[in-house]
């Protein structure tokens, strides 16, 4: 480096011949400009940071307010539910206790809802937890839905085309609660509820088939939680083709009980038939009498 330029000794009598000095001046202005630019960007960044921080604070406040309102509403709902069905609320108490933490229920990461700032290094972990909890919440609903989902079965019943009553005699008693005309079918659809409702959740929809008007399409939703109808009351069994209808309607324990009854009656009939045929057989009675008398003789000897 040329020290003379720093000391300004003016060793060169021709300053116009000094291009190096010009270069150094331009470099310093360049640095100054750069520094100013950096300062400006820093101040801009600071402003932005302040803005985002204030937004953050506002969001936290809003979140706290909504959280409070949510908790109040939930409390109200729980109260109402417990008032409406004390029995159900008693059985569901452990589930409700599990849901006590609203943060957990909403799938929030720990510590955020209370306005706590989090460490940036653990951001990813907490984000994962947050997503997992959200997934859990979204998964929880379908599980309960599938659990409560009613069994749906469709039954085709032959009927007179002139009959417009839309009644399917399946042995159960039904209460009609509605009727509507659907787009896909010119004949109306009737809605029925089991007469044991609301304790029995079974519903029935009856509509004449669009393809074959001589058939009624009955769609059953749910399973009867009470005893099935008597065979004598069941009109459907008396109609040759529709006996399968009642079989479709018999579910679970009712079906098993019926099968057991049938088996028992069959066994009784077989035993009676065997007994009558054996008593009619004279050889068998003679053999039996001999065997019994032989036994008696042996016993008297001993």
């Amino acid at each position, binding site marked *: 480096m040329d020290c003379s330029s720093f000391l300004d000794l003016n060793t060169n009598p021709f300053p116009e011949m000094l291009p190096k000095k010009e270069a150094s001046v331009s470099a310093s202005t360049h640095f100054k400009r750069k520094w100013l630019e950096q300062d400006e960007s820093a101040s801009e960044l600071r402003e932005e940071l302040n803005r985002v921080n204030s937004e953050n604070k506002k969001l936290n406040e809003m979140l706290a307010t909504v959280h409070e309102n*949510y908790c109040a*509403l939930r409390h109200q709902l729980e109260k109402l539910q417990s008032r409406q069905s004390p029995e159900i609320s008693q059985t569901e108490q452990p589930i409700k206790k599990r849901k006590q933490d609203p943060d957990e229920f909403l799938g929030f990461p720990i510590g955020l809802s209370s306005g706590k700032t989090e460490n940036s290094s653990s951001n990813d972990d907490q984000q994962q937890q*947050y997503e997992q909890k959200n997934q859990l919440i979204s998964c929880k609903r379908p599980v309960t839905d599938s659990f409560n989902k009613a069994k749906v079965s469709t039954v085709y019943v032959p009927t007179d085309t002139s009959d417009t009553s839309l009644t399917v005699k399946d042995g159960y008693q039904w209460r009609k609660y509605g009727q509507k005309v659907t787009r896909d079918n010119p004949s109306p659809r009737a809605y029925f509820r089991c007469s044991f409702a609301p304790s029995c959740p079974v519903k029935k929809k009856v509509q004449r088939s669009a393809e074959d008007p001589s058939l009624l399409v009955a769609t059953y939703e749910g399973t009867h939680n009470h005893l099935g109808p008597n065979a004598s009351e069941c009109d459907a069994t008396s109609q040759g083709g529709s006996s399968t209808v009642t079989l479709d309607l018999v579910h679970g324990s009712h079906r098993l009980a019926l099968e057991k009854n049938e088996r028992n009656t069959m066994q009784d009939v077989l035993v009676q038939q065997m007994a009558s045929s054996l008593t009619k057989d004279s050889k068998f009675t003679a053999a039996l009498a001999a065997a019994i008398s032989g036994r008696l003789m042996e016993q008297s000897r001993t």
Partner: protein
Amino acid sequence: PPTNALVEELNRVSAENKKLSEMLTLMYNNYNILKKQLV
């Protein structure tokens, strides 16, 4: 270096902000669901 620190801090606060917004949306949705249930 101070600019870099500022940028880092800004990124962190922005990420937190985003998360808070998501949470607020989620909570608001849940609140509305509950409200509907009550009605």
